[in-house]
């Protein structure tokens, strides 16, 4: 098992290396000079060169790539010479030195440095980490909601195949999959948060776009879960529809298998057969789908976050893209792909738990 996980992690690192290379090249062939964008309106040639030097833009592309990799790597080589392009700048890195070698070289362990925003000059990692938890909470809530009800309805429809319950739930799920999220978000927020706030207890105008609400008197944050309901529900509509259909077809397939007949021949009740013998077999494709959805929700559900003014990753990336704030965009892409890789490794482990046949000896 440990060998299997090591292999998966190595493979994941390889994927990340590929992503880093592509991201770096893509953003370097984009037109526009970041140094000029960083400049104030009245800057002169001299300050332009200073900024270019600071960003390493005076170096060749390959050197820049080495710098970028060195910045990202948790273990990196640096120079203590101020003039050197790999200068160990305390303003950039939070590090602890492992050992020095050569004349001025040190090997350090550090948190990956994602550079600074062109706009705000804040560290990108700080900005992303500020917004990630909000998105994580939203995505987790949405996917939990969708998985629970999706699987539940999936089982129900498969057991009641061709009845009106099955047909109406299937119809709803097709509807849910085909309505774009920006549309359903608007409809739902209008219906529940605006037209019927008394009945639903959720008022659109009181929503802060965050899990917390600030006390009017300034006494800090108050947790307000009801803020989460609408965006999580909206975000869950598509996954729930897909999960329902997947569970249904997978269950129908499994229920026709010989081992289900064996279980029935043992004298087990239908309930036990369905839950214990069928569901565990039927869940594999569902897990695949859920993991993919979860990872992409974490990457930011742009429309839903915009409409509910939810301060999450999607929001930040959208903002950065419109302002050409490349470090944030690059950082965002890297963060997203890292999440994808991690989710995939976790899913591989879940497969093994569900199905002994994919377990590796």
């Amino acid at each position, binding site marked *: 098992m440990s060998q299997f996980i090591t292999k998966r992690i190595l493979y994941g690192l390889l994927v990340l290396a590929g992503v880093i290379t592509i991201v770096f090249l893509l953003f370097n062939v984009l037109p526009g000079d970041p140094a000029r964008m960083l400049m104030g309106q009245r800057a002169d040639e001299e300050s332009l060169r200073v900024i270019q030097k600071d960003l390493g833009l005076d170096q060749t592309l390959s050197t820049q790539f080495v710098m970028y990799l060195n910045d990202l790597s948790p273990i990196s080589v640096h120079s203590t010479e101020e003039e050197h392009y790999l200068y160990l700048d305390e303003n950039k890195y939070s590090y602890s030195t492992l050992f020095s070698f050569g004349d001025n070289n040190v090997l350090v362990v550090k948190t990956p440095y994602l550079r600074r925003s062109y706009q705000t000059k804040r560290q990108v990692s700080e900005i992303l980490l500020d917004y990630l938890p909000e998105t994580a909470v939203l995505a987790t809530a949405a996917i939990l909601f969708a998985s629970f009800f999706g699987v539940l309805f999936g089982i129900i429809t498969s057991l009641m195949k061709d009845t009106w319950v099955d047909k109406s739930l299937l119809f709803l799920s097709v509807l849910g999959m085909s309505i774009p999220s920006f549309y359903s978000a608007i409809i739902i927020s209008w219906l529940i948060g605006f037209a019927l706030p008394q009945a639903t207890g959720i008022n659109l105008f009181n929503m802060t776009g965050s899990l917390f609400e600030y006390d009017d008197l300034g006494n800090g944050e108050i947790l307000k879960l009801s803020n989460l309901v609408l965006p999580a529900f909206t975000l869950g509509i598509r996954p729930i529809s897909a999960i329902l259909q997947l569970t249904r077809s997978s269950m129908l397939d499994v229920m026709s298998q010989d081992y289900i007949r064996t279980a029935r021949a*043992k*004298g087990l009740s239908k309930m036990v057969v369905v839950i214990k013998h069928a569901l565990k077999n039927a869940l594999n494709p569902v897990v695949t789908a859920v993991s993919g959805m979860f990872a992409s929700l974490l990457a930011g559900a742009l429309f839903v976050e915009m409409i509910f003014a939810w301060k999450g990753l999607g929001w930040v990336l959208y903002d950065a893209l419109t302002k050409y704030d490349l470090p944030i965009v690059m950082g965002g892409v890297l963060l997203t792909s890292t999440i994808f890789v991690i989710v995939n490794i976790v899913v591989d482990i879940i497969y093994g738990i569900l*199905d*002994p046949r994919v377990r590796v000896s």
Partner: protein
Amino acid sequence: MENRTLLEIKNLVTEFRSDGEVTKAVNNVSFTLNKGETIGIVGESGSGKSVTSLSAMRLIPNPPGEITGGEILFHGKDGVIDLVKATEKQMRSLRGNEIAMIFQEPMTSLNPVYTCGDQVAEAIMLHQKVNKKEAKKITIELFKKVELPRPDVMFDTYPHQISGGQKQRVMIAMAMSCNPSILIADEPTTALDVTVQKTILELMMQLQQEQDMGIMFITHDLGVIAELADKVVVMYKGKIVEQGTVMDIFTNPQHPYTKGLLACRPPLNRRLHWLPTVSDFMSVDDKGEMKEKNKSVEEVTENLVISPEETAKKHEKIYAQEPILEIKNLKTYFPISKGIFGRAKEYVKAVNDVSFKVYPGETLGLVGESGCGKTTLGRTILKLVEPTAGNIIFEGKDITNLSVKEMREYRKEMQIIFQDPYSSLNPRITIGEAIMEPMRVHNVFNSDAERKERVMELLKRVDLPEHHFYRYPHEFSGGQRQRICIARSLALNPKFIICDESVSALDVSVQAQVLNLLNELKEEFKFTYIFISHDLSVVKFMSDKMIVMQEGVVKEMGYADEIYNNPKTDYTKSLINAIPKGEIDDIKKSLDKKVARRSTTV
């Protein structure tokens, strides 16, 4: 004397509904099963034998199926219950407890995500109301009883980690777990090798004596139950056409269908031109009315015997030629464990240093148990699997190291017919297209119109109507599908065909038809076959020479009749021994044994 009746089925009718059409899968079936008795229910697929047994368990999928008439009286400890009218709750307490079942496919009948032990213990906990620890103890005892190796390890083993025979033993353990009074065995050995089949049958007999169980043994092969059953029920199209004691059925079959079933097994003591089939004894007209031809089994087979002299003459001619295929020291290894950089550390030697020659017009038989490497050998010859070492020489040219592109030329000449006609046809392609496809790939003929004409010819040749061109595989039975597969392999006019267990998935009656077809085609098109099977009787019927394989190595090679009459290795002997022969003497012996046993126990 005590009442030994266990189960009385009276005028049972089970119907299936689809698209407004009602078919009577079981039509007015009656028979009685007594304690300690084995009833063999025999018939081809679709004869209603499985539906009968599932009706007794009340496991007919509903919809579309429904029991619409009759009674199934179960004589249990607390009196007689009509299972047709029993509530679902009553049925649940009987299933697995009083009436247990073993299914045909051990591969798919166990839940892959639970351990073997858990699945058996589950039934024990359910019916015997014991705790988990106790159930585990009982399960391990049962595993010992069904002779599974290392029972305590087996408890925590998952189904995919053990062989088919072992899985069937687990199934038997599960069925026996609550000491049922009735065991329904639905083709329990059909998916297994003959050698494994023999051991499983022996085990079932032994358990039956110990527990005085009634067994309902469902099979398509009369031979299998010859030494097992007391009574035989022959079913055809949902009805019982004949029932009687096993001796009566074998010595004096009345119904032409029973005669057909008896005659269509490849005989071991002589060589036949072709195998008699059910149609030699009866014909069915368009209205479904049956017409008897009033011939006995002996009358039909006598005319078909080939004398040894004829055979010798034929062989002389065949082996005087240059070989069409020569295999020299062929080895095919598969890596089982890989190092961190993907280099193989250990190998399975699936084919280990095999050499032989095949002559034009010959049928070379390849026989052995599953896992002996016969299938890998067949695929290596066609280079569907890359050989590790050795040479494959086809018509004087070494094709071992040809590239995929160069090999294409030879693919036309060499074809293969696979084992499973159900999965070797793409369900989304009409059978006409499927047969046409190889011709397109190899640019045979210039237009699809010409190719289509050829497909029509081929369909006719394998006895399928031309309008089947536009149908999809699911509309056909197993035997028909295998005909389609044969037509597909004929499409390119090959010289050399490998039949890889091509009839193993078929009923004996259908098997005989397909074997006859293969032989006819061989005569007509001058084919050369390599015929691979685990069933020595089939291989012996088909082949001139025969190779016996075990663990990748050739154990014995020579004329088929000679090997059968005079086996040199113990392995070959065990293969021959395991064939269910259905000979009268053997039946008598086993009946005598049963009588002797009963008189000692009563």
